[in-house]
């Protein structure tokens, strides 16, 4: 055998775009991830966590007689209270922490379990792996938190009673509001998911950056207008049918149009995922972490 060998004849990376193969591979990753992370015992805590707002609304609408009477008699107040629950509890707490858990676990969890290399040893582009993992997290979070949102709304409308709720839903602004709330939840999962996926890829200990993001999002109401726009919650807040009252200290900013908010969030997500795709190429074997 030769002692000095040249390895210059290395084939260039495949350049053709095999979309059908990539879609098949993404579906395969989705199947593995959904089964592993969202059908196991581990996910039970997440389901319980996501159910908290629904349970609260159930208690208010069904169990507490004063609560359901208040909803029926003081509908504008009930809507405002729901707006607070939605933004304060569902969006800023449940969706935020839920996405943090789901998306940071996608890569970092596998590094800890030393099972990420099984993906790396497949005939699979790393970018496709990022997409597959992201979509599996997105699927889980969207299903979970849209159910939370829908369940909470269901009890709100249920307490209002028939036929007032039907009139409000189908002949009034009700359906628009419901769809807006669901849309905001999906956008939140989209945006926070991408942020936490990339945090999980870049940081060995993602707690500090995640807490910084949490602080930034919660203190968003205090920030000057320019900085306010560098956050996810700002766009979600402006989309909300009944935005949370941010208190007297909040800086007042003109609401961003949905035609800007929604594409901005989608473009932001795409950029963050692009960053994740670059990063994943440099991720080494789990033993080196």
């Amino acid at each position, binding site marked *: 055998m030769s002692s000095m060998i040249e390895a210059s004849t290395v084939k260039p990376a495949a350049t053709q775009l095999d979309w059908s193969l990539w879609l098949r591979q993404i579906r395969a990753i989705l199947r593995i991830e959904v089964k592993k992370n969202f059908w196991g015992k581990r996910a039970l805590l997440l389901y319980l*966590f996501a159910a*908290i707002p629904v349970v*609260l609304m159930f*208690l*208010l609408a069904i169990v*507490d007689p004063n*609560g359901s009477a208040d909803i029926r008699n003081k509908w504008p107040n009930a809507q405002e*209270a729901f707006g*607070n*629950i939605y933004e*304060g*509890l569902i969006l*800023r*707490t449940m969706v935020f*922490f839920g996405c*943090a*858990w789901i998306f940071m*676990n996608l890569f*970092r*969890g596998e590094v*800890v*379990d030393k099972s990420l290399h099984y993906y790396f040893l497949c005939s699979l582009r790393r970018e496709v792996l990022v997409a597959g993992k992201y979509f599996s997290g997105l699927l889980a979070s969207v299903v979970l938190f849209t159910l939370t949102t829908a369940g909470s709304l269901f009890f709100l409308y249920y307490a209002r009673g028939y036929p007032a709720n039907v009139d409000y839903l189908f002949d009034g602004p009700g359906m628009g509001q419901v769809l807006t709330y669901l849309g905001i939840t999906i956008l939140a999962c989209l945006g926070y998911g991408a942020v936490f996926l990339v945090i999980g890829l870049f940081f*060995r*200990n*993602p*707690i500090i950056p*995640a*807490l910084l993001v*949490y602080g930034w999002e919660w203190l968003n109401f205090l920030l000057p207008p320019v900085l306010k726009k560098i956050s996810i919650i700002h766009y979600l807040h402006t989309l909300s049918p009944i935005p949370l009252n941010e208190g007297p200290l909040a800086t007042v900013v003109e609401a961003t149009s949905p035609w800007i908010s929604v594409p901005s969030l989608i473009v932001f997500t795409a950029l963050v995922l692009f960053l994740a795709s670059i990063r994943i190429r440099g991720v080494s074997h789990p033993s080196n972490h």
Partner: protein
Amino acid sequence: MAVYEHSYKPYEGTLTSAWSRFLVIPRYAYQDLFKYKLFIALFVLCYVYPLISTVIIYLHHNANALAVLDITVSDILPINATFFYVLVSVQTSLAFVFTVIIGPVLVSRDLANNALPLYLCRPFSRFEYIVSKMLVLLILLSMFTWVPGLLLFFFQSYLEGGGWMADNLWIAGAIFTVSIAWLVILALLAMAFSAWIKWRTAASAALFAIFIIPTPIGFIIEELFNTNMGHMLNLGVAFSALSSHLFQLDWLDAKLSFFEAWGVFAAYALICVFMLSRRVHAYEVVS
């Protein structure tokens, strides 16, 4: 026919006495921890506030020093229950930071490396194991919470004289009780999470989450149902309530009664003990 050479000799030296064996784990844990300069720096930082408090107490009782610095007694903080409450609050917050750093690996490393059978096959019970691991945190955190708190209390008593100590002994009780309650619950939470969550970062996150998430839930429940029940999930609120009652601070908005606060601590402690009992054993169940 076989010849056996009996060259093996068992250890015949002295053994650590059974009653003090549980201190072996903390001893080695501290040896490990104090190897890190960053840890030592953090530990030293924890004494900054007690040092400032010492200076304030000293200034209160030293007319010459006040004259030199050209300040009057009324300009500096009064030495009362609020003074000691602030001290305890600051120091217990630092205790939380330390718990987040040290706590998550207490049990998880032993579980990940299958070390539990090694501990428990020796004359060392599960109870001793848990107590030992808890002591790692309890001793360390005590060093900069209630210990300096009580030392400052005695320092103030000495300088003040004239029955101040007897009149304010309840403050010493509050310092000790509030700190110990907090440290025990922190240690138990850290151990429980450490036993259940293999990933250190996730265990740290869970420690943060257990304090952050119940806050909005408590407030939403209060807004919706006009009840303080939601705050019974919140350890931070329980700590404030306990402090408010024991330090007799009316200005502190106690959202829970004295017994409710203890109830919250007890409930969390029981859950942690249950979680630990399910995970700390010398064998692994594979289904």
